[in-house]
Structures are given as structure tokens and as C-alpha cells.
């Protein structure tokens, strides 16, 4: 069991997502940065779909009441074990009474804490991902506890694999979206050669971009949307849907991010720059 002393800015349990209910309006949720989350699980011998703790911007303070292995991957938020610095992408043996805390955010925006066996929280509609209104919790709360699933024997590998995931990269790989062809040549140019900044309206639901492009009057009959869909609002703003986004929308879908681009964008914070790079 893990005791939550401080919740951090926004920490939630996530796995790879909740599928098969999109036709009922249920967002898939799941980890925002799949690359880092899968990597943290891999380091300690978990299946990649094991539920992890997604930590955003500032970290929680957690007291472990049982022995386990942990690994942290993704953003560097100066993690500490009993007050001493520890490092991302390493495996640590946690003993009863150990305390994990975090400090300054140094790189990226979200990190993933994996525990051996995964977190044992409620499963709703086939997933452990927290989502407001479906699960009892949407984010960590002070004074609550988290259970750890039963762990198997695991021998930590001597040579840990490296992770190739550069958060300073600005380039988001995209495909053309279904309504890409609504854009004129000039407009395509504006979208594909422009530098954009992340607006302060960024969350697990969507990342808005600051720049305002040309206003337009295109609309579509409400149709399905996906995480990574770039919507183009009539006012000329770009909204990039993320994992908790609604499953349908009426704005033109001009681009579609790759899963890797979603993982990269999940590590961006307000004001940071991005560019779109079209993948053929």
C-alpha cells in the first residue's frame, strides 16, 4: 500500500486506455506519453499495459508501506528517495517505510512512476485509467492510499535499455486529416511552415495553440475524433485533442498526429514551440 502525503499538481492512474466504448461517447483516456509509460513498465518487468502513475509538472509525496521495485520515466521532476536524489530510467528497490518525493521540473512535463506488478486500482469498462465521472477518482488526493498488485519475482537486468525520446524536439509528425483538403495552398503553407506555441489551455483533454490563423466557415456534421486530431475552429484556432478528449466533434479535422507525436506533445508546457511535419 502507498500512502499519499501530497498529491502533486495533477497525478492520475493510467494504463494504455479504455477501448470499445467510443461509440457510446467514452474517451479512451490512458497515458498521454505512451513511450515513457511503456518504458517505465519495461524497466521493472511489467507488461506494458500495467497501470502507472502519471505525474504532471509537480510530483507527489508518497510513502510506501510495502516492498516493491519502482522506475520513473518521462519528464525529469528531480525525484528523491528518502530525500536523496534518484534518477529517471533506473530501477530502485523500495523498502517498507521509504518515501518518494519530487523537486524542480527540469525537462518535459509528465513523468510516469511504475511499481512492480502495476497499481491495483478499480477497473471500469476494461481499463484502470482514471477519468472523471467514470471512475471514483480523477486525480490523486491527499490522505488516500493506492494498492499495488501482487508482484512476481523479477531479476533486474544488469544492462537497462536506453530510451530514445527527446522532449526538446519541436517537430510533431502528422498525417493529413480527413478535412485537410479544405485548406488552400496558402493555408496549407501557413499550417505546415508556421511555428506554434502551446496555449495555457492545455490538459489531458486537449492542447490549444496560441496562434490565430485565418477565420473560416467550414463545418462538418458531428463525426468521430481521435486523440491527436488537430481541429480547426471557425475563429482560426488549432486545438489538438488528447487522450481524455470527447469522441466526436464538428470542427474540421485538418491533421492527425502520430502516436509518437502525441507522446512528444504531452511533454510540452505552456508557451513551448511546436511545428508540424507532414508524413506522407
Amino acid at each position, binding site marked *: 500500500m502507498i500512502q499519499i502525503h501530497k498529491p502533486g499538481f495533477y497525478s492520475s492512474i493510467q494504463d494504455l486506455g479504455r*477501448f470499445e466504448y467510443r461509440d457510446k461517447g467514452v474517451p479512451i483516456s490512458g497515458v498521454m506519453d505512451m513511450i515513457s509509460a511503456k518504458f517505465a513498465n519495461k524497466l521493472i518487468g511489467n507488461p506494458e499495459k500495467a497501470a502507472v502513475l502519471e505525474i504532471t509538472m509537480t510530483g507527489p509525496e508518497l510513502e510506501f508501506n510495502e516492498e516493491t521495485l519502482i522506475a520513473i520515466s518521462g519528464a525529469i521532476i528531480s525525484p528523491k528517495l528518502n530525500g536523496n536524489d534518484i534518477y529517471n530510467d533506473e530501477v530502485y528497490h523500495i523498502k517498507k517505510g521509504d518515501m518518494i518525493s519530487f523537486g524542480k521540473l527540469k525537462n518535459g512535463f509528465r513523468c510516469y512512476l511504475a511499481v512492480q506488478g502495476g497499481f491495483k486500482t478499480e477497473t471500469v469498462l476494461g481499463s484502470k485509467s482514471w477519468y472523471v*465521472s467514470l471512475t471514483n477518482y480523477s486525480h490523486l488526493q491527499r490522505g488516500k492510499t493506492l494498492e499495488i498488485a501482487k508482484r512476481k519475482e523479477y531479476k533486474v537486468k544488469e544492462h537497462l535499455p536506453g530510451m530514445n525520446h527527446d522532449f526538446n524536439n519541436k517537430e510533431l509528425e502528422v498525417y493529413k486529416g*480527413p478535412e485537410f483538403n479544405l485548406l488552400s495552398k496558402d493555408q496549407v503553407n501557413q499550417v505546415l511552415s508556421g511555428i506554434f506555441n502551446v496555449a495555457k489551455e492545455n490538459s489531458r483533454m486537449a492542447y490549444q495553440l496560441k496562434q490565430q490563423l485565418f477565420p473560416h466557415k467550414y463545418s462538418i456534421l458531428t463525426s468521430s475524433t481521435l486523440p491527436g486530431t488537430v481541429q480547426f475552429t471557425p475563429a482560426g484556432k488549432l486545438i489538438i485533442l488528447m487522450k481524455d478528449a470527447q469522441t466526436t466533434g464538428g470542427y474540421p479535422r485538418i491533421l492527425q498526429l502520430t502516436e509518437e507525436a502525441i507522446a512528444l506533445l504531452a511533454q510540452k508546457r505552456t508557451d513551448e514551440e511546436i511545428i508540424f511535419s507532414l508524413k506522407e
Partner: protein
Amino acid sequence: MDKFKLEYRQYGNKALLIEWPRMVNEAILNDILKFKNAILQEIDTFELIPAYNSLTLISTTPIDFKSLTSRLKKVYKQNYTFEKIQKKLWHIPVCYDLDFGIDLEAFSLEKKLNIEEIIKFHSEPLYTIYCIGFLPGFMYLGGLNKTLHHPRRGVPRLQIPQGSVGIGGEQTGIYPQESPGGWNIIGNSPVKVFNTNNENPCGVSVGDKIKFYPINKDEHELITIQVAAGIFHLKTYELDDTNT
């Protein structure tokens, strides 16, 4: 059966979008649902999301757009008029009391209709579910009486209570959970069409029909208790193609 001219569009590397002519009508919706059933019998590796004039196929792994499109075109050409679409009619109680229908009085003044007329016009039609989205279990309903069409509120409310029944433009619907929203609220339904406590969390599907029936405040309270205890069951009727 009339066949439509369809557009196949690549949607990222794991999804494919099929579009029908841009119209809201039942013939298109039925064709979408029949094609969906036919696809399900051929290929079972996709999540299929129907909405108004589109059907989206989503895979968890990358798809070969070209070969999938030609496969789908073949399926569409097949004569599957025999395909039955399973549809249900759901009777959903709505309490139009002023305590719930916080915009009813203003709505009545602006539309120059008395409240009884609004209730009659709203609970008379057989609505069609064209799409489910926005929130888990939020139904986009078609079939609102023209006299009740009304623009959304200028400024959306930050919190609309769960179960609120509203009118926004040409649409009506129920907010399945507390949420922000800009629709004119005319009543409240005590039932939950989306409930994770149920084995099937959301009985309603795109293509199903909805009929609202007015209840008073006491009945609303009673049904709320029954819903919480898990002993309230919505009245449903199976429909077949002949009566849709």
C-alpha cells in the same frame, strides 16, 4: 435499397473514415448501420463509430489504407438489403417542473408558447439517435419539433446538473453527467442512460428511438430513488425495419 456515393478517407495511420452525402436523414443513417453490420461480419478487428453521415473504423495497429478501402468497397457493393438493423425504442421520463426547467419560463416567453404546449411538443415526437458523443452517453437526437428550435444561450453555464434536458438549436438531449453547457434547460430526467454499474453501461445505440414522457416532481423523486437502488428499468421495445 438505394446505395449512396461514399467517400473513403484516411484518418491517420490507424483509422479510416467513410462518409455519406452530407445530410441528416434516416435513410443515410440506416445505410450506415447496415454497412456497419456487414463490415462486422467480414472484419472484426475495428471499433466502428457511426455518426450522422459517417462511419469511422479505428484499429489499434496501423492499417493498409488502399487494400482496406478496396475490401470495404466490395462489402458495400454486396447486396445486403436482407441485413436487419436491431433498433430499440426507449421511453424516458422527463420532469418539466420549473425547479428543473430553469429556462422554461424565459423559453416560453421568447417562443410565445405556454408551458403545456412546450411539454406537449417536446414529448410528442419519436426522436432518432444520430450520434453518441461529447460525454459518455450523450445522445444527439434528431426530430425536434420546428416550433421548439431555439439558439443556444449566449454564454454557456459552467455547471448544468446531471439529467438536465435541454434544447440547443435544432437539437434536444439529456446531459448524462454534470457538465458545462449552453443549451436551454427545460426539464430533468431521473434515469441514467449511461451507468457503469450496469453490465451493459449504455443500452442506447445510434439508430435507436427515444420517446420522452412527462412525469411530476413526486414521480421524479421516486424514480431517482429506484435508479439509485438499481431497480428502475427503462421501458424498451424492439423495433424492426418495418416500423422504423
